[in-house]
């Protein structure tokens, strides 16, 4: 029976592929944990680099942790205020189906634009505005990077709002804006939060776009107009040094970054499950 043999062979190959894919994930996480954990210490998490840090002396990466949190929160906030209106417009305001198609296509394309290109674009914007490498510059570049992700995610939760709910709102005399803000936002609040978390997770891990725009510093972020450190660049720079102790710290920094990303991704998943229970369907 040739056809059954062929089936078995291919099922075997498929299972092997599953093992390769899931195995790579495990392999990556295990590498980061096994190499990062021994190098991690309380001082790493609570101190900024001191004199001689990059030669292996005292200090930590608090500058990069706070910098990354500031960059990603600022970018996610800015991006949210850009993308919520866009999603409203596409879902509630325009009736031009061809424009909606065009908009979705161009957002999909935007999603595929490499982050280094966002970095380069952010850099040209900053030259135009006379900004130097700063928290603000990094926030702008990251916000643009997160824009297509957020619009898509927000739109996705908004299509789940039952048509009747919007109709009832209109029937009571509410305008589109009132329906959007008072009905749709409340109905989709958990989904919006998930979307924000997803965008935050994407933003905090991105290195290529902040390389040009945010710079790097050993200080804590205090001003929008000063350079700011970030975890991905902390990994990258520390890995590039010849000093073994500093390289170890790169592993620890990568572990911190991975843990943050994992926590965000897991809480986004849990949130979706928890909060959708109370939504009117």
């Amino acid at each position, binding site marked *: 029976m040739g*056809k*059954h043999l*062929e*089936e078995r062979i*291919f*099922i075997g*190959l*498929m*299972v*092997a*592929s599953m093992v*390769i*894919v*899931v195995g*790579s*994930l495990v*392999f*990556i996480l295990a*590498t*980061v944990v096994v190499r990062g954990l021994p190098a991690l210490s309380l001082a790493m998490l609570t101190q900024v680099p001191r004199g001689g840090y990059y030669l292996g002396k005292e200090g930590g990466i608090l500058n990069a942790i706070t910098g990354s949190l500031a960059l990603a929160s600022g970018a996610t906030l800015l991006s949210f205020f850009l993308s919520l*209106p*866009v999603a409203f*417009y596409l879902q509630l*305001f*325009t009736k031009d189906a061809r424009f909606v*198609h065009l*908009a979705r*296509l*161009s*957002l999909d*394309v*935007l999603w*595929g*634009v*490499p*982050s*280094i*290109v966002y*970095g*380069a*674009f952010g*850099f*040209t914007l900053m030259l*135009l505005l006379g900004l130097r490498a700063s928290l603000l510059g990094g926030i702008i570049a990251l916000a*643009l990077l997160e824009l297509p992700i957020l*619009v898509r995610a927000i739109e996705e939760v908004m299509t789940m709002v039952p048509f009747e709910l919007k109709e009832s709102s209109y029937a009571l005399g509410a*305008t*589109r804006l*009132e329906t959007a803000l008072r009905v749709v936002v409340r109905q989709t609040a958990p989904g919006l939060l998930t979307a924000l978390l997803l965008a935050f997770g994407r933003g*905090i*891990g*991105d*290195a290529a776009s902040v*390389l040009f725009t945010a710079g790097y510093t050993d200080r804590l972020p205090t001003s929008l107009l000063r350079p700011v450190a970030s975890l*991905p*660049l902390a*990994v*990258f720079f520390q890995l590039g040094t010849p000093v073994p102790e500093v390289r170890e710290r790169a*592993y620890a920094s*990568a572990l911190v970054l991975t843990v943050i990303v994992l926590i965000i991704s897991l809480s986004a998943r849990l949130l979706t499950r928890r909060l959708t229970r109370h939504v009117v369907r």
Partner: protein
Amino acid sequence: MALRKARFRQLKDQFAGRLMGALTIFAVALVLLIALALLMRARPLLDIKPLGELLTSSDWHPLRGEFGFWPFIVGTLCVTMLAMTLAVPPCLLCAIYLAEYAPHRLRETAKPLVDLLAGIPSVVYGLWGTLAVVPVIRDVITPWAGKHLGFIPLLRPSNPTGYGVLAGGVVLAVMVFPVIISVTEEVIRAVPDGLREAALALGATRWQMVKGVVLRRSLPGVIAAIVLGFSRAFGETMAVMMVVGNVPQIPRSLFDAAYPLPALIANNYGEMMSIPLYDAALLAAALVLLLVVLFFTLAARVVLLRAVRRAA
């Protein structure tokens, strides 16, 4: 009074509509804006040398004002093609398994794991590459290839460091797994069940059904998924840059170091303002990157939209 209030609410609604429309147009036009901004910054160089010459020249001497992108383009292509060769077969098999064979619970567990893979930051991939992939290539694969396969030019163990095309390709392959798997699975699942039932009713095995009906039907979508993976890989910067060696040469063997275009941009942003025309050259490189990715993503997205519409 009430009438005035109603009028005010309507005005507010109209104003908000306009504002949102303007923001939407900004978002839609952002790709063009990016391209235009990069083009403007690249103009000083493009005015002196035509794009065609920049793309095909191999002379990279920024201090002498010579900016040939050819080695970098070849480097990007080599790493990307290798990554695709490594990634496509397991990804397709995985997607088929998840869509057609896997029991519900396995699918529900595997999908978040694939998403997780997509969420890992690229520097972490790069770190994994330097800690796990490069040493294996340096200590195991290169010596072995030297002993047994050194006569094949493509496998000549020319570079003992382990940092090179092969390392870049492996890391990049894992990075595009989630893109290809999730899109392919989606297209495969969009194939109507009636077609599957018809094939099974004719006595086909599950695999025959997949091969003869499902894959044939979803072929455009599958190709689009691969192209999306390709364009994702083409623009990936940090992870590749950390393992690929960054030597501006045309790689002749899998073990040779290469210097992809994104790495060129990222590595030299520091000094680009201090050498004349260097910034124009790097932003021109970003523009080339953007145009290539744009072309492939757009083509893939259009095919995907058609595929989904046809299935529905």
